[in-house]
């Protein structure tokens, strides 16, 4: 696994750059991850998604899909596209320090 320095900290990532260690993530790191992909500031809306993804991952062992974030996490799909433009599933996972969702829907 590659190691990279993000926000002055060494973290383990996969070949694409997604964090691989759940516990290496922090809220401060999330801000830097977001900046890396062009999200200048994390709003309350972003945090609602990130916090849901983190806790759901702990329970389920996998990253929630967009549909799960909307039906279980309570964030409408339209809003997800506003918060994480164009590729919300991957972008939200990246900022939350989780792998890409494995599910298809």
């Amino acid at each position, binding site marked *: 696994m590659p190691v990279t320095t993000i926000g002055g900290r060494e973290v383990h990532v996969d070949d694409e*750059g997604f964090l691989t260690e759940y516990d290496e993530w922090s809220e401060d790191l999330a801000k830097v991850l977001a900046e890396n992909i062009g999200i200048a500031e994390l709003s309350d809306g972003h945090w609602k998604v990130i916090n849901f993804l983190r806790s759901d991952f702990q329970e389920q062992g996998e990253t929630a899909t967009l549909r799960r974030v909307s039906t279980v996490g309570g964030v409408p799909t*339209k809003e997800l596209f506003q918060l994480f433009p164009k590729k919300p599933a991957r972008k939200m996972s990246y900022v939350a320090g989780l792998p890409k969702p494995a599910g298809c829907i």
Partner: protein
Amino acid sequence: MNDAPIVPDFGDEGEERKIAFVCSKGTLDMAYPALIMASGALEQGVETHIFFTFWGMDMINKETTGSLKFTPVGNTTATRQAHMPMIFTAFPGIASIATSQMKKQLEALDIPDVPTFLTHLTDMGCHLWACKMSVDMFGLTEDDMIDELEGIMNVADFIELIDGAQTMFI
């Protein structure tokens, strides 16, 4: 160790992709391929269009969208899985049993039913179009079809619309 952090390339700067599906089938099993692939495309930020034609009109007809059926007639996989000789597949009631079986399998995977799925797609920005000729042929109007439908379109306009799109006929 790298100096620059490894950051995923989300292709935000790349060329705009476009994808189109033509749905020509009205059975439950043939409704899902386009729905699932369209959802994947939309998640990847790809402009997505679905054109419903012929039996595919059942997918967007208010009366039928929620009650599409699956029939194992002529389906070698279904008969193998059910250990059923093909001749029995045409018997009354078999399609209902096969349909409810398939719905259970989809539900177990948390895959929404067709009407919910279509709403999910349009929430993600999907464009749904009905084929003008099919609308005329089946004597339908826009009122007969789901609210998520963007419009009725003739084939010339659709061909123009999908200029440069990767297109799949289902």
